[in-house]
C-alpha cells in the first residue's frame, strides 16, 4: 500500500482514460499530460496504460508500507525520498516505511508518480481514472491507502532507455487545427485568434483551461454538438475555453480550434498566469 499522509492541491489516480462510455455522457478523463505519464511508465517498463498518481503544483506526502520501484516524470516538484531530493525520470527503489514528500515546484505544473506495475485502485467502466460521477473517490485525500503490486521475481523494472523532450515544458506555441466553426468567424477575429498571446486564468482545471483575454464574438451559439479534449470554444462573451481531459462530450459554443494531442500535453504543464498562443499548421 501507499498511504497518503497529506494530500496535495489536487491529486488523482489516472490512466489513459475511459473509452467506450462517451455515449452515456461520461468524459474520457485520464492523465492530463500523456507524454509525461507515459514516460514515467516506460522508464519503469510498465505498460502505457498503467495507473499513475497525478499531482498539480503542490504534491502530497506519501508513506510506503511495502517495497517497490518508482519513477516520477513531468513537473519537477523537488520530491524528497526520506529527506533526500530525487530526480525526475529516474528509477528509485523505496523500502517499507519510506516517505516521499513533494516540495517546491521548479518547472511545469503536473507531476506523475508511477510505481512498478501501476497503482491498483478500483476499475470502474474499464478505467482507474478518478472522476466525480464515476469513481467512489474523485481525488486523493489524507488517510487513503493506494494498493500496489507486491514486488517479486516476476515484477522487475526493465531499465529501458528513453529519449526526453526538453522542450516539453517550454512549448507555449500550441499547434492547432481549424475547428468546425472557424470559417464562420470574420477575418479580423480569425487573425486575432492566431496572433494573440492569451493569459491562462485561475478557472483552469482538468475540465478546461480558461483565459483572461476577450475576443469579439460575432457568432451565435450552435445546436449542441460534439466536442473532444483539445476543442477550443468561443463563448458569447468572447472568452476562449480549451477543453481538457475531463471535458463533457457535447457543447453548444462555437468550436473555433482543435489542439493537437501533443499541444494538450504541453498546455497541461502551463501555469495560471502564463501566456500561450495558437499556431495553425
Amino acid at each position, binding site marked *: 500500500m501507499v498511504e497518503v499522509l497529506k494530500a496535495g492541491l489536487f491529486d488523482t489516480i489516472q490512466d489513459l482514460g475511459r473509452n467506450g462510455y*462517451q455515449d*452515456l455522457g461520461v468524459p474520457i478523463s485520464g492523465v492530463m499530460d500523456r507524454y509525461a505519464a507515459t514516460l514515467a511508465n516506460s522508464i519503469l517498463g510498465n505498460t502505457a496504460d498503467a495507473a499513475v498518481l497525478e499531482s498539480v503544483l503542490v504534491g502530497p506526502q506519501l508513506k510506503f508500507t511495502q517495497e517497490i520501484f518508482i519513477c516520477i516524470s513531468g513537473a519537477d516538484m523537488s520530491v524528497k525520498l526520506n529527506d533526500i531530493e530525487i530526480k525526475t525520470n529516474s528509477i528509485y527503489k523505496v523500502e517499507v516505511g519510506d516517505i516521499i514528500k513533494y516540495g517546491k515546484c521548479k518547472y511545469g505544473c503536473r507531476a506523475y508518480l508511477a510505481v512498478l506495475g501501476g497503482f491498483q485502485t478500483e476499475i470502474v467502466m474499464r478505467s482507474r481514472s478518478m472522476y466525480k*460521477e*464515476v469513481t467512489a473517490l474523485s481525488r486523493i485525500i489524507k488517510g487513503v491507502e493506494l494498493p500496489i503490486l507486491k514486488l517479486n521475481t516476476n515484477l522487475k523494472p526493465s531499465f529501458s532507455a528513453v529519449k526526453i523532450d526538453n522542450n516539453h515544458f517550454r512549448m507555449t506555441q500550441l499547434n492547432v487545427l481549424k475547428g*468546425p466553426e472557424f470559417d464562420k468567424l470574420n477575418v479580423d477575429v480569425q487573425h486575432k485568434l492566431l496572433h494573440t498571446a492569451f493569459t491562462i486564468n485561475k478557472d483552469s482545471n482538468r475540465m478546461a483551461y480558461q483565459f483572461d483575454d476577450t475576443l469579439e464574438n460575432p457568432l451565435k451559439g450552435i*445546436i449542441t454538438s*460534439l466536442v473532444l479534449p*483539445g476543442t477550443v470554444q468561443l463563448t458569447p462573451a468572447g472568452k476562449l475555453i480549451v477543453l481538457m481531459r475531463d471535458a463533457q462530450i*457535447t457543447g453548444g459554443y462555437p468550436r473555433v480550434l482543435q489542439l493537437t494531442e501533443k499541444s494538450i500535453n504541453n498546455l497541461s504543464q502551463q501555469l495560471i498566469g502564463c501566456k500561450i498562443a495558437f499556431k495553425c499548421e
Partner: protein
Amino acid sequence: MLTLFIFHEKLMNFELSYRRFSEQSILVEWPQNIDEFILKDVLLFKQYLATLDVKSILQINNAYNSLLIIYNFTIDDVYSEITELKTHYRQRNIVKKSNSKLFKIPVCYDEEFGLDLEIISAEKQLPISQIIALHSQVVYTVFFIGFLPGFLYLGGLDKQLHFPRKKNPRQVIKKGAVAIGGQQTGIYPNVSPGGWNIIGNCPLEFFIPKKETPCFASAGDKVKFIPVSRLDYDDIVVKINSGNFIIENEDIDG
C-alpha cells in the same frame, strides 16, 4: 410499417459535410436543424458503422445532427477516410434496425420540486395544471446523452413550453430535477449547477456507474413523463432503495 419506413428513408439522402475534427477523428454533419428525421438518419448511420465492426474505429459519438468518428490512429490521409465514410453512408440502408424502447418515467410536479412553475405560468399566461399537462402528454425522443453522465437530451417539447434559460444559473440543482431550457427539456441525473427552469423531480436513477448498463436509456429511445403525487413519489423512492422498482417500458419500432 417498418418496411415502408425504411423504403421511405432510402429516398432521403441528406447532404452531409465531412471534415477532419482532431488528429484522430472525423466530424460528419447533417443540416443544422433539430429534427427527428435527421436524428433517425444520424443514428442509422451510427448503427450501420457499428455493425461493420471496423477495427480502427475506437468510438462513435452523436449529437442532434452530427457524428464524431474517433479512430485509434492518427489520420494521415483524411480524403481516403472520408471517401470510405461516404461509401458507407450510401450503403447504410441495408442495416436491420434494432428496436427502441418507450420508458414511462414518473415525475412529481409538486410545488416543493417545481421551483420555476410559477414564473413560467405567469410569463406564459398558462395555468400550472396546463404546463404539467403539456409536459406530460408528449412522447419525447432521446437524441443523445451528454452534459453530465446520464443527462438525456430530449426532443419534442411543446412550443408553448419553450422558455429561455436563466441569466444567472443556480449553483446547485437537485438530483432528479426535471427542467426546461430553451426548446429542450431534461432531467438532472445528479446534483449540478445549471441554468434550466425547474418544473418537477424524477425519483429514478439515470446513472449508476457500477451497473453493466449504467444508464437504462440510449439515443433513439422514447420517454413519456407520468405525473405522480408527492405520496407516490416517496413510495417510488422507497421501492428504488430496496431494489423493487422496475421502470415501465415497452418495445417500439425504431
